[in-house]
């Protein structure tokens, strides 16, 4: 299929070979017709996989774009792939047309000129995006500059089973105290898993008196001093973790079965609606609820980016634009489907579109936007990389 697409591109008149102008939307949709888009996205969550399959059927219907979901276990795989293609001199018709990305991976790709763009702010649906108050123009403090387009908002929530743990916790210090009196009842995904490192950052932000230092890159001078409280905290927490910290769940979704079985009472999620979705899918008991910390929790946006050597950039832009459409956004927010936060501004939508969102029942375990409270910014990626590496050395190999 892909070969045919490349062949067709080669046989088409020459202008087709030049990079397409994102602002010329008619040309984009015309070129997208018949293209196959290989979307590399983490495949560990069945609800996300189902959603991507639905997106595929919709863009095929409306734009004649064939969407193939390449299921990754780690987004870094896709980054590697594009990087090696560039080094092998394959500057067109690469294996990947679109990547679900953010944070360090985006920083790495943007830095190495591996991305197509800017395109995001030229897409028609960008006009509906709440770029004023949602952090979609910076990604982990890195300016986005149109090289990736947002499609979901995420915020850290804690997931607890009220049947065994009735009360919410207000801070990370409360969590440590609770874990010490309830050993073996909490765990977090194993760093360098995305959610696992997020937990570490959340700890650091919450226990530091002033977290503003994290907005700047970590330096050799300040790193040890800033992170010392984190390691003290973890040294105290680890013996009280599930399996005493000798094993960790691989990912965030792998924590749900642990709650469902009663192995742990408390977990962490990056998706405020995921718990309600899991209840709907029989993966969690209906006694599960979520909470955020008093000082707020970390939030960020999920983006899609297009590699510079994609052979189906027009098709990828069509998919990226569709992801920002009210139809796709409302579906993603539906807790029985995905339960992701929307990137759109409700006041920018037409009445009909807004009705789609109003009709949603967010689910018993989902906090309202007001309850979600303050969204704390992600630290600079350099913190995450160093903390994650140090975690592996301290807790990941030495047991």
């Amino acid at each position, binding site marked *: 299929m*892909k070969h045919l697409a490349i062949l067709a591109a080669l046989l088409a008149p020459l202008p087709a070979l030049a990079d397409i102008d994102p602002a010329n939307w008619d040309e984009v949709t015309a070129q997208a017709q018949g293209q196959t888009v*290989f979307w*590399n996205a983490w*495949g*560990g969550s*069945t609800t996300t*996989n*189902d959603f991507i*399959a639905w997106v595929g059927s919709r863009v095929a219907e409306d734009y004649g774009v064939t969407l193939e979901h*390449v*299921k*990754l*276990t*780690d987004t*870094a*795989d*896709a*980054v*590697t*792939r594009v*990087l*090696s293609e560039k*080094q*092998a001199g*394959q500057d067109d018709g690469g*294996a990947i047309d679109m990547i679900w990305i953010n944070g360090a*991976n985006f920083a*790495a790709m943007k830095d190495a000129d591996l991305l197509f763009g800017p395109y995001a702010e030229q897409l028609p649906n960008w006009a509906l995006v709440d770029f004023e108050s949602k952090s979609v123009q910076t990604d982990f403090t890195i300016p986005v500059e149109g090289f990736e387009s947002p499609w979901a908002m995420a915020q850290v929530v804690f997931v607890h089973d009220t049947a*065994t743990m009735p009360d919410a916790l207000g801070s990370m210090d409360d969590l440590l105290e609770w874990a010490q009196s309830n*050993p*073996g009842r909490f765990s977090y995904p*194993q760093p360098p898993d995305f959610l696992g490192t997020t937990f570490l950052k959340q700890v650091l932000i919450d226990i530091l008196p002033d977290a503003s230092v994290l907005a700047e890159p970590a330096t050799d001078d300040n790193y040890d001093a800033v992170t010392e409280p984190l390691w003290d905290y973890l040294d105290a927490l680890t013996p009280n973790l*599930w*399996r*005493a910290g*000798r*094993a*960790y769940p*691989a*990912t965030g*979704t*792998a*924590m*749900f*079965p*642990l709650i*469902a*079985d*009663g*192995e742990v009472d408390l977990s962490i999620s990056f998706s405020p609606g995921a718990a309600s979705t899991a209840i709907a*899918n*029989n*993966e969690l*008991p209906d006694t599960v609820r979520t909470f955020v910390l008093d000082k707020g929790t970390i939030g960020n946006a999920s983006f899609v980016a297009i590699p510079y050597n994609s052979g189906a950039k027009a098709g990828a832009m069509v998919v990226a634009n569709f992801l920002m459409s009210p139809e796709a956004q409302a579906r993603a927010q539906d807790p029985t489907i995905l339960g992701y936060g929307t990137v759109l501004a409700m006041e920018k939508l037409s009445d009909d579109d807004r009705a789609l969102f109003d009709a949603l029942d967010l689910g018993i375990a989902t906090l309202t936007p007001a309850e979600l409270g303050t969204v704390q910014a992600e630290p600079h990626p350099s913190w995450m990389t160093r903390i994650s590496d140090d975690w592996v*050395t301290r*807790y*990941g*190999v*030495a*047991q």
Partner: protein
Amino acid sequence: MSRRYLLPVLPALTLLAMLGPVGAGLWGTFLPAFGHLPAAGLTGPSLDPFRDLFGWAGLPRAMMLSIGTGLLATVISLAIVMLVTAGWSGTRPFLMLERALSPLLAVPHAAAAFGLAFLIAPSGWLARLTSPGLTGWDRPPDLLIVQDSWGLAMTAGLIVKEVPFLLLITLAALGQADAQRSVRVAQALGYRRLTGWLKTVFPRVYAQIRPPIYVVLAYAMSVVDVAIILGPNTPPSLSVQIVKWMSHPDLAFRLEAAAGALLQLALVIGALVVWRIGETIVAALGRRWIASGARGKADAVVAGGALVAGTFSALAVLLGLVVLAIWSFAGFWSFPAALPDEMTLRNWLRFGPGTLKALGETAVIAVTAAMIALILTIGCLEAEYRHNIRVSQRAVWLLYLPLLVPQTAFLPGLQTLMLNIGADVGRWPVMLAHLVFVLPYVFLSLADPFRAWDTRMGVIAAALGASPDRVLWRVRLPMLLRPVLTALAVGLAVSVGQYLPTLLIGGGRVATLTTEAVALASGGDRRAIGVYGLMQTGAALVPFALALLIPAIVWRNRKGLRHG
């Protein structure tokens, strides 16, 4: 090339298909291990990759895991098979165990590992069935059973899959060892059955099954999918860590992966040498034991224990498949309920379409690889027959070579090499990579029945005016329909179960049931894993069922072929 000249070169072509990728892969591993990776702008030689590797804090444990789980799994599964065969072959319990274990050979490693995990985890089915009644648990105990630091769960996962393999290999070897009469003679001399078997038959059988035992050892030391599902993560085994380094966004980590791959190869070679030395020690001790004239006082206990272990091994896989099936239909299922609150088709409706797509990909790859392997195998065997090529014992080792080199030692190199020459990833390279593993098994499966065919049939047919091709197509292959289909089924099952070649050579673009199932491991969605695991098992088992059924239907009126 005319067909006349094609046949004699087929054996060479077959060896190339099997050993070419292995050789190329090792070369592709060797260069980056010494710092040479032009794709990342690095040119060697340099020892930095090894310095980085030995600087990794998890290395000692990762190495110990690789060695420990590999040796333990091999020793235990071999002991179970040898003692069960020694104590029970020819008896009713043995026949029943053999019948239970044979189909398990086709169950993919990943599915068996998932089943075992769902069975033995603190929240697994065994705990559910016995709680709270027997155990008093109303919540799962905080015990590190699956993914334990010592790799015991992973070792168990390997044992339950290697026992059926070694048993079938042993049964094949027994036919040539004249076991029944030897044991009868020993029994007449006052030896108990198990001791008599060990002293008279074991040395001959062992000599025959030595290559597959080495394969089991090399495989168990470097397995990836079972280790991801059942093995520890703090740190993981060396092979899993190599795969992690391979997928690191920083290409420089491929150098560390390559160095790790060479270390993995060295570990396997070292373990094989140790095993070989162990063989001579055991042989010396055995000779003393034989000379001592001991008749075997503990026979009954040992034989009983072995039978129990063998039965547990079979039950673990069978019950594992049952619990996979239950999860695939499960509604909400809390601990310690023995069964889900409700059974529902919802999971199948959700994941069914996805599995069908993966099944299609799996089938295309497996059918192509197995058919190519079958054609090459028949070509080799027919060339051997027509041109009277004698196959030496040394050539037989060549067949086992691709199975002895750890997958993690040459597949990363093969991927890097393909990257360097700009070859496209995708289905065809994956098929060729599968062929490396499918070919030996297809060949080993078909060679004996093919050679055992009464060549006087060929003389008669030629005397009746049939050309060699006509003899092959009209007489030999129809008569060998069942072994040919069985060999094809073996090839399909091997291909269906491949994880690492599909993942690495497919560049993530080729999604088979196995890669999808193992990818789900990280998400922990047991309902999805249940659906994918069952589909994967079905994809491997159905061809075997057909290999039994088709000849039975086609030759339903041919008594002479009923036991062929």
